[in-house]
């Protein structure tokens, strides 16, 4: 399967799963694979109709769906987070990122779920 076909398939499955979980027509506006100059790579899922409250209530399920989805894109689901519009309940995107060493140090140093007002960490596997 080409990368774009995988993206299409994962987009639809994840959207279906979230809709069924929450009972509202959450909308995955775009699913992108990315590679950054620092060496990080991963996927960004722009989402609408999805709030921090949804994450807090269904975190376990959402994490599971997200892990499944990222594995299908051959992304190690070791760092998963939501990007929020700071100061609001709105989630702008869900993200899976394979961290480069330098970004890993930045994130691993932080404490708690929200190291920054625009980030809600669903999962960050610490290196041994």
């Amino acid at each position: 399967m080409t990368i774009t076909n995988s993206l299409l398939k994962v987009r639809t499955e994840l959207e279906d799963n979230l809709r069924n979980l929450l009972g509202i027509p959450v909308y995955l506006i775009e699913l992108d694979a990315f590679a950054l100059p620092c060496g990080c790579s991963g996927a960004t899922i722009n989402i609408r109709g999805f709030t921090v409250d949804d994450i807090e209530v269904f975190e376990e399920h959402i994490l599971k769906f997200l892990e499944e989805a990222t594995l299908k894109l051959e992304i190690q689901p070791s760092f998963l987070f939501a990007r929020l519009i700071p100061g609001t309940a709105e989630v702008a995107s869900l993200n899976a990122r394979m961290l480069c060493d330098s970004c890993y140090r930045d994130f691993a140093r932080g404490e708690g779920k929200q190291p920054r007002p625009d980030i809600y960490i669903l999962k960050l596997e610490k290196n041994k």
Partner: protein
Amino acid sequence: MPAMKLYVPHVGHMEGLQKLLADPSKIHSVYMAGSPDYIGTGRTNLSAPTLESIAEQTEYAHEKGVKIDMVLNSSCMGGQQLTPEGYRAIGWYLDRLNDIGIDSLTVADPYLIEMIAHEYDMETVVSVLSFVDSPQKAEFYEGLGADTIVVDPVVNRDFGKLEAIRDVTSGDLKLLVNEACLYQCPFRYAHFNFFSHANGPGPKPNVIDDYYYYKCLSLRIRNPEQIIKSPWIRPEDLSEYKHITDMFKIGGRTHFVEWILNNINAYYNESYDGNLLDLLDSIKDLKDTFYVANRDLEGAIEQWEKCDKNCHKCGYCKRLAENIIKIQTEDGNKKLSSIRNPEDI
């Protein structure tokens, strides 16, 4: 042939205009943004045409028998319009537009409306961003010298208000048919002020997320009945408005020409067979999520004509939404209730 004047969005470059006016017979006037260096607009701009380009496009439209309107409807200019430098710069720009032969200017700021009405022969149009939703405001803007008022769509389904506005105005009224903001949208002022700064003279804000737009989509996704409540006017229902006006404006100058042409055909023919969301401007991102068969809305106008908009008592739009709004999924369009717990509805 329908007796109506259609005011049509134009993205702002010559190529777009040529496509748009391939058949100019249905179009009374096109409107476009000018250069954001002088006055911005209350919406996203795709282009910032130079004066040379505006002149060339005006000549072309006039050859085709179509009028040109420049939209200068910043809802906030940060006070620059009242400084000596601002006054001079705006005056210089308006002089050029006047020399070019622009037919009308659509403006939101009362100060600019009065200034243009006093000092220029170009027709002065009160923008939808002046929020004229009452006969009192309509009288006020006419008193400033405005020739035409684009009525705030919030009253598009309030015929008492529309008739009262019509009764007090001697000038022209225009209705915006497909904007689709939330009914009584709480974001309008803040959102248009933000756009005005982002699309006006600098300094421009370096914005990461358009909170207002995200929230607007979110509210509809979580409550799809909001899509029904938005005060758009179906092409089929234009006939209900003929006693108010024959001037109808189509929103959407950030869309492809094909999208605009589809809208022109729908409103000119007063008929559309397809997804209502194909026609709506501000929530275009939802057209792949929701399917609202336009024909399923037949007759809803009769309810809206008599409705007092106390949604919590009425519930008509909510019931309609549950019945006709479909969710688009990989395996076809499904009813809302297929993903919703019926107890939540």
